[in-house]
């Protein structure tokens, strides 16, 4: 009988699910996180199973991670996104030693060893201006689609300097710049630089070692990737799908845990393979 492993990553902005077999990834799902995280966990699991054409009972081990990891009742184990990102990134880049993750509401930097195990980490989850949220707020203020922010900013030749450290003040500053007639791409490039400065300040609290990988929603923004690489003075590698490294890592860690248990002859506790109906409030 084949083994299948599932990883569910409930982030502050996006929820991701991944199913893997011993050969590789066989299903991936990405969707927005909402307030009903348990329902969402069920939904992405269902969608992933549909993609893989597998019943839930066939999944050998399930690991949940992310900010909402406690809201996955069918997960056999919960592990932090630090550990899962480390494992996931090293799957895509065995030479990775430093990971920088720019998420929707936080950013983090992780040092890993050759096996993808974290040896040190730093997190910034106290301030919107150090996360993807910063870019989102500005995109809205400028009336630009989030996906367009990157390509537009790459056209800039004269990025502006944002002097304020606060998202709200920065928004006021760029509105003033718009009124002055500063080109859109220069404003966006300035925003990216501002976030990149904060992120690289965070990352520098660890000793940066090659190879450096950028993950998270922020890594899908080519303008931001360029800005971070410039601030960090390091080449950055980006995984094929930067949002999935956490879920992939979670699935792989499940596989690792199972392999260790089998080698020792112990049995791992697993949860019932049911996606329980979630009662909605007020129903």
């Amino acid at each position, binding site marked *: 009988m084949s083994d299948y492993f599932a990883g569910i990553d409930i982030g502050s902005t996006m929820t991701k699910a991944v199913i893997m077999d011993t050969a590789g990834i066989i299903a991936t799902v990405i969707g927005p996180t909402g307030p009903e995280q348990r329902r969402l966990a069920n939904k992405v699991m269902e969608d992933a199973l549909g993609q893989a054409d597998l019943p839930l009972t066939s999944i050998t081990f399930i690991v949940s991670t992310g900010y909402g990891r406690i809201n996955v009742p069918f997960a056999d184990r919960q592990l932090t996104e630090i550990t899962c990102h480390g494992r996931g990134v090293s799957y895509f880049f065995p030479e990775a030693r430093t990971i920088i993750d720019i998420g929707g509401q936080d950013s983090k930097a992780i040092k890993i060893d050759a096996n993808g195990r974290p040896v040190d980490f730093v997190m910034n*989850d106290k301030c919107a201006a150090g996360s993807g949220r910063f870019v989102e707020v500005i995109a809205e203020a400028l009336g630009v689609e989030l996906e367009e922010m990157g390509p537009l900013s790459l056209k800039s030749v004269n990025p502006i300097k944002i002097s304020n450290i606060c998202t709200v003040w920065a928004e006021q500053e760029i509105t003033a710049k718009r009124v002055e007639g500063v080109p859109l791409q220069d404003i966006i490039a300035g925003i990216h630089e501002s976030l990149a400065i904060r992120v690289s300040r965070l990352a520098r609290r660890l000793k940066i070692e090659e190879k450096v990988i950028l993950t998270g929603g922020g890594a899908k923004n080519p303008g931001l990737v360029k800005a971070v690489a410039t601030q960090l003075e390091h080449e950055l590698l980006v995984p094929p799908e930067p949002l999935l490294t956490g879920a992939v890592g979670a699935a792989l860690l499940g596989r690792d845990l199972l392999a260790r248990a089998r080698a020792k002859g112990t049995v791992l506790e697993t949860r019932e393979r049911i996606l329980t109906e979630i009662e909605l409030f007020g129903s």
Partner: protein
Amino acid sequence: MTDKNSIIASKVEPLYRDYGARAREIAAQGRKVIGYVCSFVPLELITAAGCVPFRIRGDVAEPITKGDTLLETIVCPFYRSTFDLAVKGKYDFLTGVVIPHACDSMTRSFSVWSYSLNYPYFHFVNIPSVVDDSSFVFFNAELDAYKTSLEEFTGQKISDAAIAKAIKLHNDNRRKAKAIYAYRQSDPPMISGVELTKVMTVGTSLPIEESNALFDEVLAELQQRTAAPVKKGPRILFDAACVDNIELIELIEASGANVVVDTICNGTRDYFPLADEQGDPIDALSRRYLDGINCPKTYRTNTAGTFEGDCASRFGDIAALAKDYKVDGAVLYIYKYCDPFGFEVPARKAFYDALKVPVLYLEDMYSTGTIGQLSTRVQAFLEMIG
């Protein structure tokens, strides 16, 4: 899990939750209760004066409001909390407060405390910054002045014999505390970090004789314990300044680790150093409080000539604790805006590396609001060392 009928559940818990209840009672009976915040305040003189020393606590669940109208927000967040509670009247039963020269947050806000609160007795004890021979001469004189101020306040002379008696009582308290700590050395420990922190915290809110009696009861019960209240897990050393609440320790233990020893002010920093019971009592206090206490606020000359040697001397007691309690990892927990500890972070981290003890460094405010953020970090750290 603590048994409902245990001393800790029945006696310690209520005094931890309603902190100061006993002090309020004895103040109503006419005894003078004198508050302090910091391991550097010589308690024996307060006891020798016939008063009751009371360790002022903050409250992580109480948002700081009134205090901020008088005290800047760049002050140590724990100290801000204590001041906020004081101006809100939570410590109305005190007749005085003694503040030591321990850090700028305390020293620079002495006037703010003494002018904003109506206590009849306020005293500042000027603890030296260095440990030279001349420092002890100075400190002896400063302790005499402190003694005189207490005599003037109570209207009674304090004899050397009274101080010697107080030293013995406080030493007994420390020895009993250390005996309680010894129950953490087994694997798993026979007393959880949460339980012990409650016991130690409550101990500082009672008159010394009552604190001794309570510790005796706790020890008697621990002797009878056959089952550990916690499961085996990574053994953690909790390295911090004043952490007078269980929230973070509870989080660490809920994540599967055991906090087996600490360096905190209301923990080993208060309880482990003893005062000499022989010789001149003022001398004995002078030695204990200036040299016996290990706190970053005291500048110790680098006699080793190397960084590693200096660290080994400055943090030697941490190394001893790590060894005696067989720790697997350490949590270095520093308040934002804390100067004495803040400047030591790289040196402490290097020292833990040299000891081969993995360390999680957390910078925090003093509030339950950050517990979610701390949870991820603690769990990630435990996953790392597990």
